[in-house]
């Protein structure tokens, strides 16, 4: 299969699909319908409620679960070089298979007035492409974790307390669901969260509240690829979050723990010394009768991380300080002609600012876009190697073809790296994910097209295609095609 022609085919498919979606949206544009009501869903809690033994609208507790299996296949692709001079972070050009399997139990309980506690144990088994190396924000499966293994690992993903203090306004119904007790909140309220969670539970939540395990597969669609939020290797953190909701407005701030070393599991609890700060402003609106939302997010991390310029300076001043002579934490590069971040790590600051917009354009059809600009001076510490990112996409439910629980989406994700980041990679350096030994710096792009078909109400079978150009921000390699199948169940 000729990759360029494949891309052309993809563009055609996207154009046709987008036209179809927009046509349908015009035909059925009546209101900005949110996600289906719980009455349409099946769950254990709904079953108990139907039997009259559980008050699902004002819950004292709830329990939900899910399992997801994702299998991806990557055919061989063109690459004039791979892991040049002993660098280690190339996406391998050979055909590869990757998978993830997860099972999750979401437990929630009301502890006292306004207080909710949540505990989420999870098990994961995984095998990434090329040991999760060689891609920036275009990593094809958002479930992949750093340091994961095919041997299933059980861990606690979340354990946190949420306290809500009502300040009046309208009464808002919150449906029962994972990480949410069925209840009513004041539209004006203060919310405090403390414990162990992923910051994405509260910041830059998924477009249209679609469960990511039903939606886009690509990591770049989960949040801003350039949002290097502080978290451990699995994507979770300890910390606290405060939110202030005032009708259609919300402001939130959070301080969370970074890992002790970049992209590793151990957590640094010295929150006054090393931390990830983020703040977000959110506004919900209605445009021509269709609901939408705009968010602006800024983050500032202080972590023990290396600046690309410092690593280059150290190497140029003393070539003995290269990637093979590290005496502290490093990624194991064998390139003795390359600088390495191990010689530059010290308390440094990383900053970024981004914006997100989602807008329903018809019944169960919406578009979204998000973009972020980070300073690009320092290494990736937790999320992706991307320094600047932009994503646009369209999501639609199958209401128009009488399959309202089906979901279809198409989107594209663009990622850039800073000039100094490109210079560092061009000298053969590696960061947590990318570094081919050389680089023809370019925009890493991925196009993601998926369809999730629901059956028996609680299962979703998805097919997904991703086309990735300039993998690892390197125009000399690729493009890459990825084909994925996903089975997902909820109860």
């Amino acid at each position: 299969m000729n990759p360029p022609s494949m891309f052309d085919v993809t563009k055609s498919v996207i154009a046709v699909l987008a036209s179809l979606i927009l046509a349908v949206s015009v035909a059925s544009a009546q209101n900005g319908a949110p996600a289906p009501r719980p009455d349409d869903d099946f769950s254990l809690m709904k079953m108990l409620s139907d039997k009259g033994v559980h008050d699902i609208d004002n819950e004292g507790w709830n329990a939900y679960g899910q399992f997801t299996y994702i299998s991806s296949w990557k055919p061989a692709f063109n690459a004039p070089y791979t892991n040049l001079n002993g660098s280690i972070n190339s996406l391998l050009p050979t055909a590869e298979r990757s998978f993830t399997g997860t099972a999750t139990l979401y437990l929630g309980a009301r502890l006292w007035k306004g207080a909710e506690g949540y505990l989420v144990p999870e098990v994961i088994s995984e095998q990434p492409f090329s040991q999760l190396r060689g891609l920036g924000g275009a990593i094809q499966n958002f479930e992949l974790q750093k340091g994961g293994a095919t041997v299933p690992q059980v861990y606690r993903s979340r354990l946190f307390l949420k306290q809500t203090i009502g300040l009046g306004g309208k009464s808002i119904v919150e449906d029962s669901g994972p990480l949410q007790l069925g209840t009513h909140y004041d539209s004006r309220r203060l919310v405090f969260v403390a414990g162990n969670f992923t910051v994405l539970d509260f910041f830059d939540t998924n477009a249209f509240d679609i469960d990511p395990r039903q939606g886009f597969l690509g990591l770049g669609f989960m949040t801003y690829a350039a949002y290097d939020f502080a978290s451990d290797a699995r994507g979770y953190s300890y910390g606290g979050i405060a939110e202030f909701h005032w009708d259609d407005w919300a402001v939130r701030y959070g301080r969370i723990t970074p890992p002790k070393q970049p992209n590793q599991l151990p957590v640094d609890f010295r929150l006054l010394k090393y931390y990830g700060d983020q703040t977000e402003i959110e506004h919900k609106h209605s445009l021509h009768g269709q609901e939408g939302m705009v968010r602006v997010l800024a983050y500032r991390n202080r972590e023990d991380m290396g600046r690309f310029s410092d690593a280059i300076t150290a190497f140029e001043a003393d070539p003995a300080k290269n990637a093979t002579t590290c005496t502290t934490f490093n990624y194991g590069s064998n390139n003795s002609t390359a600088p390495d971040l191990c010689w530059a790590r010290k308390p440094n600051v990383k900053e970024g600012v981004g914006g997100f917009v989602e807008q329903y354009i018809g019944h169960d059809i919406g578009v979204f876009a998000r973009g972020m600009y980070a300073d690009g001076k320092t290494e990736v510490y937790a999320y992706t190697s991307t320094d600047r990112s932009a994503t646009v996409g369209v999501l639609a439910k199958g209401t128009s073809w009488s399959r309202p629980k089906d979901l279809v989406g198409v989107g594209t994700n663009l990622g850039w790296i800073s000039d100094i980041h490109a210079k560092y990679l061009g000298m053969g350096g590696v960061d947590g994910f990318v570094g081919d030994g050389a680089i023809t710096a370019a925009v890493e792009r991925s196009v993601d097209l998926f369809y999730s078909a629901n059956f028996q109400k609680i299962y979703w079978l998805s097919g997904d295609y991703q086309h990735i150009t300039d993998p690892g921000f390197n125009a000399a390699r690729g493009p890459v095609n990825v084909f994925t199948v996903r089975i997902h169940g909820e109860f």
Partner: protein
Amino acid sequence: MASFKSIRGRVWPLLAALSVFWCFVSSAEAQQQASGFAVERFYQSAPGGGWFVMDDLDISGRLGGAISATSGYERNPLVITGPDGKQKLAVVSQEAFLDIGGSVTHDRFRAYLNIPMPLLVTGTSGKLGPYQYTAPNLTLGSSPDTVSDGRIGVDARLFGQPGDLLRLGAGAQLIFPSGNRSDYVSDARYGGMLRFLAAGDAGAFRYAGQLGVHLRPLNDAPVPGSPNGNEFLYGISGGRTFAGPSGWAVIAGPEIFGETAFHSFFSGETGTEALMTGRLEQTGTEHNLRIKLGVGHALQQNFGAAQWRIVYGVELFGHK
């Protein structure tokens, strides 16, 4: 609205898939060759069980349940004596944990889930005779999300009513593996417990007891201090109730519990602890609260019985 039959038809395939997944977890973990084992011998009663280890069998009413959070710290839970009988090595000298549990009750039956999470497990490495022991070095920072061997169980009150002088019951638990043997938080294989329970009230006095079997496939004999397979469980507790206003009460009294391996019945591999407990509780409403505190010392300090420990917990419980 989906019929119950059709719902059941959807749920069974889901449960089957999850079971297969867990079996995969089990077999994969069982293949690990790491040393160590689940050193914790503080086998808590089910959420809502009243005592720390014993169970007051006060299960009644329509649909109800409990959630619990228990934490504790123990000193020297695994001190191994060398072949000369003099040299001692504290392979696990400190252990702290947090355990979150939840139970659902109906009439005289209870089903529950306990998810323990180690916060600290450290000790001293060394050699005793021909055996080299590598101490664990687990902290919340190094292992921020570890779950150790969890438990799913069912209990039933078979004889007597709440408040009776004698209540009898039985319980069964499935222990599912999680965590690493090298951290001394897991046997890395499935286990189980079968227990016969007794409890009763006599005026202001309460008591409870248990006899049971810990079905433990792990047998690392002859390595000193290691599990020797299936174990016999025993325990007894008693206390006095000091009633207060508005349904509040304080119950104070000791709990004694322990275990011994069937292979060396009440000889070498036996550990017994005594715990002085006090609990403040409010009962008689739909939403009840219990706050528990216990401080204890080993009566027979080996086989995982801590030299001393402190435990504390809170339970929310009730029924319609």
